[in-house]
């Protein structure tokens, strides 16, 4: 019989039964002492997520990365052309470009005619470059704006609920609320990798 302690799983290398027998005299009863005794063991095996920052060590590397950043900056300053962005909106991610139409299927607070600025921009791309946020891009590097144009209802949907062998079934007719959003601008401001612009501003 495989025993699993409350809350967390044991590392593979230790068989739970052996520890139990060693620590607790009672056969299958768990106590806090057991959990406390083994926390250090468990902690040693936990992997914490870390982010590796690769810094340019050699002069050649530094020059190469500077050349790339300058190229992108130059592209943005002259004519970035069509841009696309990935924004997070109501717990969903959308890949959008200028003049796109987004339909959001839920009751959403902003009113018709409201102009919005989307601040959770995860990624921005042009024809020759892509900027990836960690997890979002700094606010003063990218601006994505949109307008609420309509609020309507969807077509009638069927929502059928059925439980086997329990004589329960329900058929509901639902019209969800739909919010129409027009994306107006996707802009990148010049000077990427500039510490003044790339710093996160917190209100």
């Amino acid at each position, binding site marked *: 019989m495989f025993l699993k302690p409350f809350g967390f799983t044991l590392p593979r290398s230790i068989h739970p039964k052996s520890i139990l027998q060693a620590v607790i005299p009672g056969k299958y009863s768990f106590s806090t002492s057991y959990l406390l005794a083994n926390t250090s063991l468990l902690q040693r095996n936990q992997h914490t997520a870390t982010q590796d920052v690769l810094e340019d060590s050699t002069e050649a590397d530094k020059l190469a990365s500077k050349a790339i950043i300058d190229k992108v900056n130059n592209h943005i300053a002259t004519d970035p*052309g*069509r*841009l*696309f962005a990935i924004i997070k909106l109501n717990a969903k991610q*959308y890949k*959008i*470009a*200028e*003049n*796109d*139409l*987004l*339909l*959001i*299927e839920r009751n959403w607070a902003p009113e*018709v*005619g409201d102009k919005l600025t989307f601040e959770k921009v995860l990624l921005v*791309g*042009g*024809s020759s470059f*892509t900027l990836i946020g960690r997890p979002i891009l700094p606010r003063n590097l990218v601006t994505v704006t949109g*307008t609420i*144009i*309509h*609020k*309507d*209802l*969807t*077509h*009638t949907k*069927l929502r059928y609920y059925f439980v086997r062998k329990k004589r329960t079934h329900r058929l509901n*007719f639902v019209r969800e609320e739909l919010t*129409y959003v*027009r994306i*107006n601008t996707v802009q990148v401001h010049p000077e990427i990798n500039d510490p003044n612009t790339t710093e996160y501003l917190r209100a």
Partner: protein
Amino acid sequence: MSNRSRLVPIDFPRVPLKNGVSRVICQLKRITIKFCKSSGASYGVRSFIEHDLLDYSRKNPEVAIYLKPRRHHSPVVVSEYLNGEKHYMNYHNFTRDNVDKWMNFHRTSVGWPKKKWRKLHYTRTPSVQGVWSPFTNMDPRLNITKFPDKYLGIPLHSPETATEKLREMFEKQKLNEENEEKVGKVKIEVQS
């Protein structure tokens, strides 16, 4: 609800007049409220007219509002849109809040007949960096190779044959022998 009313036209999402590209235009043109001055069914509509209608008309100057009292009929609201659509809605026994809510709904709605949207996203720029295909970042060597090719024709996951195994063993043996010879030579040199 009949099955027939579920058969709605299917379309890709769109909006009249490219609405929102530079400006937002209210699609509601004219709204007519038909109600009774005495019956209980239009009580909510009457209180809406009394308290909220002036505010509503001031906020939306582009909408023409008509009031049409008629005796002993349930209240009906007819909303007409810029594209010529006309929607009827019965307001029988609606409360004042409910009337307010639905009047705002007519104002904000698209004004088209009910449609089922295939997607909830419409874009004119489906791809900026080019559509990805399995060949996008591949070695262009394939363009000039002539088929059948000796190396590309080999199956990817074929088990090792007996002859190959033997050949490997033979080569290992050879290597070992060479090493032994070398070691022997070194030993001899050291000795000498």
